[in-house]
């Protein structure tokens, strides 16, 4: 039913570039990093494969208190004619403005949204809700999920579902939801978490964490009811192209953008 009501909007496939020191890396449960490429090159390659959007996360910024690598953002934005979302280390209104000025179309706020929830409201009012994404890292705790900050290292005792509703009320335009339990396992997205958040809010939800094969993407879009699926390693290591993923999704009856008749 949920999917039927918004069927004219295609489901988005979003490769994620986790970036550290200017290089794309993919963490195994946020630890043990391995270099897999140059952000602008990789982003451009994904665009050519019909990626619907690129997410660029400076995965160490919050932790190390460093500024986002705006120069790399700029070089990446330069190669793209699809939307670019940038997150990691964005702490203030000025950081949001700077990131947008460097060529990002949307910014993703995580730790700072928790410590200063007013930041969400301020940014949404100034720049428009459509460019403010709140990233939520959630980990199962009994019957619910707890929000973590600082690249998944600090528990907050905040309930992920309640937090999702709050960011929505504060004017956030989209939620980037990562299951910390699933992330890095390649065993599939956390369907229950995703569906619970999707059904609790009235803004789009991007599911993240756990993608190891195409079937996982089908699962999270159909059963998790996500509006978009984010994945990294399945694309970075050449396991599948974005186009291959979309061909399977299309066969499964999921609406996707194929760029037919344009090339």
């Amino acid at each position, binding site marked *: 039913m949920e999917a039927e009501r918004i069927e004219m909007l295609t489901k988005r496939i979003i490769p994620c570039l986790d970036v550290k020191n200017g290089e794309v890396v993919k963490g195994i449960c946020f630890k043990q990093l391995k270099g897999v490429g140059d952000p602008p090159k990789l982003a451009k390659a994904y665009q050519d494969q019909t990626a619907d959007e690129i997410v660029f996360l400076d995965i160490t910024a919050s932790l190390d208190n460093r500024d986002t690598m705006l120069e790399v953002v700029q070089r990446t934005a330069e190669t793209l*004619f699809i939307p670019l979302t940038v997150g990691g280390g964005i702490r203030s209104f000025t950081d949001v403005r700077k990131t947008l000025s460097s060529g990002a179309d949307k910014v993703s706020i995580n730790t700072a949204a928790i410590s200063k929830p007013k930041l969400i409201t301020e940014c949404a009012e100034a720049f428009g809700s459509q460019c403010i994404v709140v990233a939520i890292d959630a980990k199962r705790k009994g019957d619910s999920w707890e929000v973590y900050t600082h690249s998944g290292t600090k528990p907050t005792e905040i309930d992920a579902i309640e937090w999702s509703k709050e960011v929505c009320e504060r004017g956030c335009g989209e939620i980037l939801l990562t299951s910390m339990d699933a992330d890095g396992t390649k065993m599939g997205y956390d369907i229950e978490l995703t569906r619970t958040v999707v059904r609790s809010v009235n803004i789009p939800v991007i599911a993240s964490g756990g993608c190891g094969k195409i079937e996982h993407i089908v699962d999270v879009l159909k059963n998790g009811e996500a509006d978009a699926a984010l994945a990294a390693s399945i694309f970075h290591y050449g396991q599948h192209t974005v186009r291959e993923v979309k061909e399977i999704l299309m066969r499964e009856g999921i609406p996707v953008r194929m760029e037919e008749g*344009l090339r």
Partner: protein
Amino acid sequence: MKAVIVDYGIGNLHSIRKGLEKTGAKTEIVSDMNKLESADCIVFPGVGAFGEAMRKLEPIREIINGRLSSGIPVLGICLGMQILLEDSEESREKGLGFVKGRVKKFVADRVPQMGWNDAIFDSDEEIFKGVPSGTQFYFANSYVCFPEDGKVLSKSRYGEIDYASAIRKENVFGFQFHPEKSSIAGLKVLKNFVEIARGL
């Protein structure tokens, strides 16, 4: 011809500049609104909020409307399209009112509309030359235009309403989608706009 991109003082202007330059157009980003008086092609980009943008444009409203009526090519993208209309549910500030009609908030399960949606159009429209009807463009909007004059060039559907995703009145074009973020299809539309603009 030089496309003058209006800087409301907020948001990302690189994308639209880059998109226009890719088609071979010259561009200039201006934050001094008085410069619009001599512009021969104006682009209102799709960044920011309605109230913020109109507060910046209000002091030179008459000059801008004079330019829009003078027949120069103009492109309004997303918010830049919405400010062409009379008013918006987003803000108390009035729009430019060059196009009659209102901007209303989407009534849908998920707002904003975020992602790639179909645009349905007549294949004879020059602005869509080389692009098949039904092609997806990138949208990121909570509000949508209900124009009462001019011509609707394309329609899209979201939350069970059909709405104008592209309009034209005289030589003023408005796109609810972001051509500069719509990959190959979007670049073709921008190229078509630049070609139409050059021929005027």
